[in-house]
């Protein structure tokens, strides 16, 4: 990252070309016309093998969710669920707790996301577009706050929320989520705001726009990828979070989806693995799909924020 002059090429993992591979592997034996050298092809096989091992747990989750119990409790595992059923999914959807938890998760994530993005955006503007006493301290604080082990704080967070009657309340959980997400989001957005040259705004002002007008007409549209990236980050954090939810939402009626899933596991362990896997699949698949759709943008955004500063 000290190589500041290096052009930010191929910032997205999926879109990157094979450029760095070439100089590393290009040797005398490279056959230009006959495809890649043998070594590269062997490495390709290794890469695919690693990929299969890595993805296996997720495949296994989805595969098991289609199998009835009597097919799961067999000496030899069923590797391809050819004769699968949707019965497990029906069981999960028939659980009133699922719909309830889904709603709770949705509300908590919505509040967290809206507040975190708005607050972080304003703060990012402040630190990259304004000079004021304490600016540097604020930036350092944002960095250091991320070192605090949240896992050591939950007791006093619980006590605090308890004192305010916010335990088992979506607002209480959202508050601690926003506190956890905002520092990093500011850090990320700050990179994006700083990346838009102030000269662009100044040019707009020379042409007669007000300072605010110049900002919203010129800079704001350029920040869209950064806002998307931080939105994805916040969404994944709030939707998947378990520890704080476990501490704050003690009432079974106020569970978020991860808590509901853990309850399902504990009710069905060693008896109905198929139902449990269907539950896991139900909360995982939407996130995975969403993640795959936006990741290109997001990873590109994260990396761009890092290498361009």
């Amino acid at each position: 990252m000290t190589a500041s002059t290096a052009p930010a090429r191929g910032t997205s993992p999926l879109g990157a070309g094979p450029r760095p591979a070439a100089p590393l592997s290009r040797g005398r034996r490279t056959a230009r016309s006959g495809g890649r050298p043998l070594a590269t092809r062997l490495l390709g096989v290794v890469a695919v093998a690693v990929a299969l091992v890595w993805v296996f747990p997720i495949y296994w989750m989805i595969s098991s969710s289609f199998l009835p119990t009597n097919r799961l409790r067999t000496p030899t595992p069923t590797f391809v669920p050819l004769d699968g059923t949707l019965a497990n999914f029906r069981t999960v959807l028939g659980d009133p707790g699922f719909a309830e938890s889904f709603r709770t998760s949705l509300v908590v994530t919505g509040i967290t996301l809206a507040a975190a993005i708005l607050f972080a955006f304003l703060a990012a503007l402040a630190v990259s577009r304004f000079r004021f006493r304490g600016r540097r301290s604020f930036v350092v604080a944002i960095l250091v706050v991320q070192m605090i082990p949240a896992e050591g704080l939950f007791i006093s967070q619980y006590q605090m929320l308890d004192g305010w009657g916010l335990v088992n309340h979506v607002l209480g959980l959202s508050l601690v989520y926003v506190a956890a997400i905002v520092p990093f989001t500011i850090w990320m957005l700050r990179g994006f705001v700083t990346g838009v040259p102030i000269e662009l705004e100044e040019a707009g002002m020379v042409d007669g726009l007000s300072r605010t007008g110049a900002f919203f007409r010129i800079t704001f549209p350029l920040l869209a990828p950064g806002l998307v990236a931080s939105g994805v980050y916040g969404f994944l954090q709030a939707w998947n979070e378990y520890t704080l939810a476990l501490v704050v939402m003690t009432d079974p009626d106020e569970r978020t989806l991860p808590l509901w899933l853990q309850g399902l596991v504990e009710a069905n362990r060693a008896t109905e693995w198929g139902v449990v896997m269907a539950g896991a699949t139900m909360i995982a698949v939407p996130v995975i799909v969403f993640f795959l759709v936006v990741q290109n943008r997001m990873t590109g955004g994260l990396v761009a924020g890092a290498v361009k500063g």
Partner: protein
Amino acid sequence: MSGPYDGRPVTAATPSMTVAPAPALPPGQSPPRGRPPLRRLGGYALIVPAAIPILVGLGYPLARQFVLSFQEYGLAQQFGRPAEWVGLDNYVALLSDGYVWAVIVRSVAFCLANAAITMAVGMALAVLMARVGRPARLVLQVSMLLAWGTPVLATMTVWQWLFDSQYGVVNWILAEPLGMAGMRYHAWLVEPLSFYAVATVIVVWMSVPFVVFTVYAGLLQVPTETLEAAQLDGASSWDRFWLITIPMVKPVLLVVALLQIIWDLRVFTQIYVLQRAGAPTRDTHLLGTYIYSLAKEFSMAGAMATIMLVLTLALTGFYIRHMLREEEL
């Protein structure tokens, strides 16, 4: 609430060539001395909405827990008796307990082992990703993304099923194709070492994708020209990798390693869920779950959490100092 899967990335070490913040004055407008008050207030006004939840949600609990750790606060206090100051008693009680030291040593060992394995595997796969052809790279990237994006509770659930002693596929693979008959009905979670082995597999599996993507992005930044020049000068590909590529991606590696250490020291969800799956909790506690188990004794939990914070700073302090010195913020 962060974990290895959350994609807290390279940005944490924004490089030093940060574009200078806005010049205070838009040119051609406003006399030099007329405007400062409003502009300065503007900066403060913009950070207030973000500062409030941080101060309320993190700052206040941190301070409160710190204060609490010097007080006697147990059941009686929950029913209204004022807390008494007891000085360092809580710390003395904790640090003179051999069990607490066992938890601390275990946590540090678990953290360093997991961070090291994650870094080694992640770097190896990042280099692999940079060297293979496009189709293989795509396959690897998609599988990494799947492991990264899946909610932690969903993956914890499937890992329990994979390691199920009776019908789990891991035991089946070990016993049938690999011929280790003794592993056929192995109960993984009962014995601490094997419990930590399972936890390590899970934590590494979840953490590696982030390392791979970040280091891979770093590798792409190494200028091709430099490598070619070195090659012309006769450097072997081994030399080029260790003498050029590695030093150039070193800042990225440092940040990623730092984050891994922080995350692996505070690991909670994975250990907690595995404990609930039938492990002896006392023999398997790490810092996070131990603090959680102290929940009823607020003061002790507060003191323990403070010890954990100090431990985190001890493990990462040198790096933070380095970063604050080098970075232009």
